[in-house]
């Protein structure tokens, strides 16, 4: 690395929450993600867009090392969180996942009560020892996810009994409860109707005050509405990324142009 490059990297780390450099992902022989460099700013919403199968979810899963669980999956390159290499041997995955939460495409509440769904994360990380402390965490997480009013009378009912949109907000509340720094969301609205989607989009905008958010979405309107930065992936490469406004009005690459004008994807 030249002195200039080192300096640039330093600046990137100072300014950004997550910095990915030359990230490659292989599923067995298949090269699913190629040489991705991406910076993710603090207290910003970054959306990942691109045609199906281009590697958005794969990249997202790199950020909390969920790829570790997939057999035959190999990640190379460097990803840092606050300047700390998350693929470093000495790093504890459990702690990483406490700092980087995740919300999935399909709502996946545990078959437990609403209360226990929220309390699950804090319990395994030893947060909220006393009953009153845990009650507080549950209430504040549910309120921040905009769900408290709807479920406060049914905290002991199973979380699987809520509606789809409520379940997804429950999953968001569950992720918030461990007080992470980054929240990853993989198409969080794809299983929801427009009203539930609007609620979640509003929620994402509020959560930005306290969290860094990365969201995968298939809807360009959604990316435009909720995110400050957008990254466009195509066939496993990161084609371009930048300010959402800029990328949608003035794409530099013709593949981006083609995708956002609906010519392919």
């Amino acid at each position, binding site marked *: 690395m030249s002195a200039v490059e080192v300096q640039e990297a330093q600046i990137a780390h100072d300014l950004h929450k997550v910095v990915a450099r030359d990230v490659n992902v292989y599923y067995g022989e298949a090269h699913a993600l190629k040489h991705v460099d991406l910076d993710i700013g603090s207290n910003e919403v970054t959306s990942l867009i691109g045609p199906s199968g281009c590697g958005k979810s794969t990249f997202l899963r790199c950020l*909390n090392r*969920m790829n570790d*669980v997939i*057999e035959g999956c190999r990640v190379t390159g460097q990803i840092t969180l606050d300047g700390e290499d998350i693929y470093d041997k000495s790093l504890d*995955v*459990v*702690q*990483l*996942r*406490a700092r980087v*939460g*995740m919300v*999935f495409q*399909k709502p*996946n*509440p*545990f*078959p*437990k009560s609403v209360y226990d769904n929220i309390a*699950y*994360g804090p319990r*395994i*990380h030893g947060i909220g020892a006393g009953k009153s402390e845990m009650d507080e965490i549950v209430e504040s997480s549910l309120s921040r996810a905009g769900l408290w009013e709807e479920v406060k009378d049914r905290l002991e009912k199973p979380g*699987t009994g809520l509606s789809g949109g409520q379940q997804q907000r429950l*999953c968001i509340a*569950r*992720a918030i409860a*461990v007080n992470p720094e980054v929240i990853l969301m993989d198409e969080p609205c794809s299983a929801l109707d427009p009203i539930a989607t609007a609620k979640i989009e509003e929620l994402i905008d509020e959560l930005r005050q306290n969290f860094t958010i990365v969201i995968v979405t298939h809807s360009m309107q959604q990316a435009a509405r909720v995110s400050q930065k957008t990254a466009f992936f195509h066939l496993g490469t990161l084609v371009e990324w930048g300010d959402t406004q800029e990328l949608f009005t003035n794409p530099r690459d013709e593949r981006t142009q083609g995708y956002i004008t609906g010519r392919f994807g």
Partner: protein
Amino acid sequence: MNLILLCLIMVVLTVIGYWLGQRQAVSAAGGDARRLHSLPSYHGFYVALCALLPAIVLFVLWLIVEPIIAEQVLISRLPAEVQSQDPNALRLLVGDIKSLALGNIVSREIDASLQAAADGYASVRGAGRLGMTVAVLALLLAGAAWAWRRISVDHRARNGVEMIASGIMILASTIAILTTLGIIFSLLFETGRFFEKVPFFEFLFGTKWSPQTALRADQVGASGAFGAIPLFAGTLLITVIAICVAVPVGLCSAIYMSEYAGPRLRALAKPALEILAGVPTVVYGFFAALTVAPFFRNSGEALGLTVSSESALAAGVVMGIMIIPFVSSLSDDVMNAVPQTLRDGAYALGATKSETIRQVIVPAALPGIVGAVLLAVSRAIGETMIVVMAAGLAANLTANPFEAVTTVTVQIVTLLVGDQEFDSAKTLAAFALGLVLFATTLALNVVALNVVRKYREKYD
């Protein structure tokens, strides 16, 4: 004519009927099979079925009814004073005449009148056989001809064949259900007779089991006590021991197979475990009696414990091994059915693998696991061979696993082995025990299947 030959002829005629029906259908359509409502093969099947089914029904009925009629004829031909003698003697005589007619051993002197009666009987049976052959073949041909004449372009042979096929299925399942009902009713009936001799409450709540009843009034020590509590207790003790072995081992191997083992190891390990369920129980029985029981007795001696050579422990442990696959295989299936998204959810919150298994997967799969255990329990309760060989016959009312105990199934076996009067309380007690056993396992199965079904509904 030989019965086997007759069957062969029926089959051959049916096949010919199929072939002719098919050809007739094609020629009815002027050689263009596409004009037919049904494929030619359906026309063929239609002819074959119309020929064969009525013939088979007649065949079976004839086989059932003919001997009865022949016997009536035989009796009516006997002299009046012979007919009016005591029914038991008459039955013996009729049996001898039949044996003579069939060339078997006869228990009395053969005189001319006996020989004549036997010849008469033989000729009646011979005529019956001939009549049957003619009638069955005639019916077969008539059925075939009737179906053959109906073949036309518009004839809905396919619908007909479908109807006949579904009729056959319904008949088969009806037979299975009726058999079950028959067993239940005969159990109920005989149990009712048992409770005429032994009071209901004495049976269910009595604590002394000693089923020897006196054959003669002056026999000693044969008063007969039918308190089934020691048997229930023995069954319970052995079942509990078996569950204590099977549940931890089965559950852990299920968790290993569904969560830790790779797909290739799993494909090997699962059938390997299921082999345990395929070992004949007799083999488990002598394994228990010859290997496990002496081992426990010797180890017990070394520790200063008295373990009898037939112990609840030996039988229970071996039975536990036998039911491991019931627990492991079914639990593995239900844990595999827990959606991957739940695992991902737990991992993403920072749960480790064992935390995920303990706190998410097992609770999610719990109803299914409970169902699996209940099925295993009902299997253990009904198991006989292992306990006969390893647990002993002493009806002790004890909770000590080192003593010999006995179970409901073992007692049913001992009550019925050997020469028995069929209407003594001793024999009838077997039916009462059988009914209790049946009711228990039925209830367990119903509960288990419902629990499993509930679980299935949640994730599909």
